[in-house]
């Protein structure tokens, strides 16, 4: 009584949906590429790292300050987030009782839901005024790194939590059966065995930090220069695009598309690196 024809027709009706999914990344690549092409052709590509500065109306396209801004702020945020996320994962799995663990996990879930602009708003109205007196205007690398860290912490924390949960409990029981403690178990068994998952979590967080736009836009200070100190105002690749897109024309616009493509290549590269190692 099987009706293979009906099944096959149904499957055929569903397949286009999957095709849409496959087509979309290509569509994005094509359109971004098409828009980026004029600037690439006009400059040949090298000026994006070799020009003296970023000033598209004058034909200068050096993106390095923005690339540096993205990398420095994201990596610094990751350095802050890493130990906290690992500590969170260990505490919630090895030290906290069931109720405490539930509260902690709920906290991470809620923090993950806070939108970028709200982080930016709170940083702008609370953190920046604290610094304005001694280090005007208060915007810059320091505030940006702290804000980014708070934003990507949930990403790292929940990934590391999952990685630690996956470690079989046999090893920890064996450690405890020797009269040792949960901390010994964490050092000797859990951390080594969860290390791959921890690395993945941190890479995911880095990818998120690199792609962040709004909060960074609100507190980084919007100046095209290398971020050399905690109070240096700077720009990220994302911020650069967001700020200038409104009034950019022709080659300038095209150059912004180039930086967007570069940004995506950066994120894809970071994620691919992790995939290959796993």
């Amino acid at each position, binding site marked *: 009584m099987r009706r293979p024809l009906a099944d096959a027709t149904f499957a055929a009706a569903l397949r286009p949906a999957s095709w849409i999914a496959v087509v979309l990344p290509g569509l994005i690549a094509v359109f971004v590429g098409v828009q980026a092409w004029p600037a690439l052709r006009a400059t040949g590509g090298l000026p994006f790292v070799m020009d003296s500065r970023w000033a598209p109306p004058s034909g200068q396209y050096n993106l390095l300050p923005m690339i540096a801004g993205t990398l420095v702020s994201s990596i610094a945020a990751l350095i802050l987030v890493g130990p906290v996320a690992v500590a969170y994962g260990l505490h919630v799995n090895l030290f906290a009782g069931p109720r405490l663990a539930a509260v902690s996990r709920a906290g991470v879930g809620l923090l993950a839901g806070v939108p970028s602009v709200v982080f930016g708003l709170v940083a702008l109205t609370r953190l920046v005024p604290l610094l304005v007196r001694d280090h005007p205007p208060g915007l810059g690398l320091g505030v940006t790194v702290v804000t980014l860290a708070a934003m990507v912490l949930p990403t790292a924390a929940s990934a590391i939590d999952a990685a630690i949960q996956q470690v079989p409990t*046999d090893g*920890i*029981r*064996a450690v*405890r*059966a*020797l*009269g040792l403690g949960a901390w*010994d178990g964490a050092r000797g068994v859990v951390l080594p065995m969860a290390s791959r998952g921890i690395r993945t979590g941190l890479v995911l967080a880095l990818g998120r930090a690199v792609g962040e736009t709004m909060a960074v836009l609100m507190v980084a200070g919007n100046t095209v220069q290398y971020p050399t100190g905690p109070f240096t105002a700077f720009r990220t690749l994302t911020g650069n695009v967001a700020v200038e897109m409104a009034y950019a024309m022709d080659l300038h616009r095209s150059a912004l598309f180039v930086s967007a493509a570069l940004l995506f290549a950066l994120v894809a590269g970071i994620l691919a690196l992790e995939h290959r190692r796993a």
Partner: protein
Amino acid sequence: MSAALPTNPTVEVRGVTVRYGRHVAVDRAEFTAPPGVITALVGPSGSGKTSVLHAINRLHELDRDVQVEGMIRVGSDDVRTLDDYTLRTRVGLIFQRPTPFPMSIRENVRFPLRGHGVARSELEGRVQAALVRAALWDEVKDRLDSAATALSGGQQQRLCLARALSLDPQVLLLDEPCAALDPQSTALVEETLRALVGRTTLLLVTHNLAQARRLATHLVCLWPAPGGGRVADEGAADRVFAQPATAELCDYFAGLTG
């Protein structure tokens, strides 16, 4: 940690009930493991052998929702009055499946020693002594820095024995230690256990009645029941094997059930 005082305590289990939530695994178990000899804890699946064993070094406290009633004494001490970390250095436990730590063989044995503050100068000696006692030294002495996870199952289990023995426990609990091992490894483990008689009180949970016959001086038989596993018989191994107290035990020993 006194390496020189094997005090061979008696292990007394008095009216011990173990509950997992609402399920009763062991109902008012009562038995004594005499000092310095091997007591085997036998019985079919579901009779609560492992639950009772884990209660002796309070390992059940690592899980949620487990309740233990009754009294357990090691020597003259009620286990609940002792610091649980210290208790577990006096009462060691070997699990059914080998649990090598993700480190080198040497580091595996050093881990508990360092964790309990043994001086660096003493470490090498005690590591070697422990591996010798576990009948593993000769096989691994040339590759102490290689990964413990690369050892065979039998070697890993002997490594776990070495780890436990490095702390010189007065009591050693073993939860079906040879269940996952081949006959040669089983023989080596049994040889190690026999060598511990007189220095340590051993409690061996086993499914393998032949093993119990080979090793045990004293025998405790648990039998599953709807209200939780109960002690069906206890006594000198020879006597219990020859004249078990219940008909079910008779059948069990004859190989007809369990």
